[in-house]
C-alpha cells in the first residue's frame, strides 16, 4: 500500500511544456478526482505518473519509491493500475485474453482478482468472453479496460475519462462499481471525469487543474459549495 505524491512535476511534449509544477497527494485508500477543462493537462499528469511521458522536472513517488525515472512496466509493477483515455483495449484479443494477458498480482494481495470475480462485477463480459474486443460496443470496452486493470491487482487505480461516450445507464453502473466495490476494498483511486456532481458523490477529495497547474483542491462539500470555482475552472 502506498501513497502517491507528486511535487513540482513539469512535463513537455517535445519543446512545448504542458505541466508547470503539479503537486498532488493521494493517500492509500482515498478516492480523489482530477478535474479541469479540456487540454489543461490531466491526461499528461497521469501519463507522467505512469512513465509514458516522463516528467522533466519535479518528483513523483509511490509508496516512498521515487518513480519519475522508472520505466512504465516497473511503475505498474509497483501496484498502479491504469485505465487509459480512449479505452485502448487489445482489439485483436478476445475478452478473456484481454483479462489474462497482463494479469498479475502486483500489490501482492492475498485474494487476487480472478477472471470470475471480474465477470461477476461486469456480467456482460461473461456473455462476451470469447468475442474479440474490437467487436465490443464502447461501453463493454470500457468495462473491459477497467477489468483488465483490476486483473493486475493494483493498490492504486487511475481512471482517465472512464465514462466518455457511454450511455447514461452504463455510466451510472460504472460509478456504482467505483463507489461500492473498489472503495470498499480499500483501493486508492484517482479519477478523471467531467461530472462534478457525480464525482462529489463518490470521491473524498478533488483537485482542479488549469493550464498545467493545480489551482484548487478540497473535499466534496467544498466542491459543491464553490459554484464560482466550478464556473471558473470547470465551465459549469
Amino acid at each position, binding site marked *: 500500500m502506498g501513497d502517491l505524491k507528486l511535487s513540482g512535476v513539469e512535463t513537455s511534449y517535445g519543446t512545448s511544456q504542458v505541466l508547470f509544477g503539479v503537486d498532488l497527494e493521494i493517500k492509500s485508500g482515498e478516492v480523489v478526482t482530477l478535474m479541469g477543462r479540456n487540454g489543461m493537462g490531466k491526461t499528461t499528469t497521469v501519463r507522467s505518473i505512469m512513465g509514458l511521458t516522463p516528467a522533466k522536472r519535479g518528483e513523483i513517488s509511490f509508496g516512498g519509491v521515487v518513480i519519475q525515472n522508472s520505466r*512504465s*512496466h516497473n511503475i505498474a509493477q509497483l501496484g498502479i493500475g491504469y485505465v*487509459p483515455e480512449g479505452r485502448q483495449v487489445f482489439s*485483436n484479443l478476445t475478452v478473456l485474453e484481454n483479462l489474462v494477458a497482463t494479469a498479475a498480482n502486483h500489490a501482492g494481495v492475498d485474494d487476487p482478482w480472478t477472471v470470475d470475480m471480474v465477470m461477476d462485477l461486469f456480467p456482460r463480459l461473461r456473455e462476451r468472453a470469447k468475442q474479440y474486443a474490437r467487436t465490443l460496443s464502447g461501453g463493454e470496452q470500457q468495462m473491459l479496460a477497467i477489468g483488465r486493470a483490476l486483473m493486475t491487482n493494483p493498490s492504486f487505480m487511475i481512471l482517465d475519462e472512464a465514462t466518455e461516450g457511454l450511455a447514461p445507464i452504463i455510466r451510472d453502473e460504472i460509478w456504482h462499481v467505483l463507489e461500492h466495490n473498489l472503495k470498499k476494498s480499500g483501493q486508492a483511486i484517482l479519477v478523471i471525469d467531467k461530472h462534478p456532481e457525480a464525482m462529489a458523490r463518490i470521491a473524498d477529495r478533488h483537485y482542479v487543474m488549469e493550464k498545467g497547474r493545480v489551482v484548487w483542491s478540497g473535499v466534496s462539500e467544498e466542491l459543491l459549495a464553490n459554484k464560482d470555482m466550478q464556473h471558473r475552472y470547470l465551465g459549469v
Partner: protein
Amino acid sequence: MELFFEQSLNGLQQGVMLFLMAAGLTLVFGIMHLINLAHGSLYMIGAYVAASVTQASDSFTLGILAALVAAGLTGMLLEFSALRRLYNRDHLDQVLATFGMILFFNELVKILWGPQALFLSTPEFLSGTLEFIPGAPYPSYRLFIIGAGLVVALLLRHLIIHTRVGMLIRAGATHREMVGALGVNIDELYTIVFGLGAMLAGLAGALAGPMLAVEVGMGEKILILTFVVIIIGGIGSVRGALVGALLVGMVDTYGRAFLPTIMRELLDPASADTVAASMSSVAIYVLMAVVLIWKPRGLFQAYGS
C-alpha cells in the same frame, strides 16, 4: 498424372520453405510494425553458420542448432542496438537502416568466409529418394523440409494463439504502450520476438543450405519472394503467411512446370519457349497484383489493423 502429383508436391515444398522465412518476417513486420529487410541477412547467416559447423563437426543437427543460435543472437543484437529505436519511426527509416545492414552483413560474410559459395551437404540419412509416387522418386530431403515446415507452423500457431506470450505479442500489435503500462516489460518481449523471427530465418537458411548455393546475397533473392508471400497472405497473420506461401509455391511451380507445354500448343516452339519462360518468371508477381487488386489488404486480415 503422377507428374501433376509430383509437381504439386514440389509446389508444397517450395511453399513450406517460403513459409519458414515468411513466418519470421510476418511476426516482426505485422506485430512489431518493423520492416526488416535484414531478415534475408539472418537467413544467410543461418546458412553460412550451418555450413561451417556441419563441415567442422560432421553433424547436420549441430549445424542447424548453431544456425539457430547464431541467427537468433544476431537478431537480438540488432534489435537491441539499433532497431528498437526505430519502432515509432516511419517505415521508410526502417527500410533505410535495414538496407544498410544488408550491405554490412553481405560484406562481413564475404570477409569472413570469402567470396565463393560454401558447401553444405544433405545429411546422410536424408540424401536418398523415396518413391511413394510410383515412377517418380522424390528426394527425402525435400520431404523432410515439408515436415519441418509444418511442425514449425503448428508450433508457431500454438505459441501465438494459446500462450500468454502470444497474447502479449498480439496485444503489443495494437497498443504497445498499454502493455507496458500494465506491467509487462514490452521491450524485452519484443527483443525476444525479434530473436524468434531471426531464428526462423536462420532455420530457413540452414535448411535451404543443402539444396541451394550458400553464397553472399542469397538472402535478397528470397527476401522479395518472402515479402510477396506475406503481402498476399495479409501482413501479420501467420495463417496468411502459410496460405500465401503455399499459393506462391504452387503458382510458381505450376507455371514453370506446365506453361511451356501449354504455350507450345498455342504458338510456334521458338516463341512458345520464350513466352512461357517470361510468363513463369512473372507468375508470382501477377499473382500478387491480382490478389491485391481483388483484395487490397491481402487474403487474411492482419492483427494490427
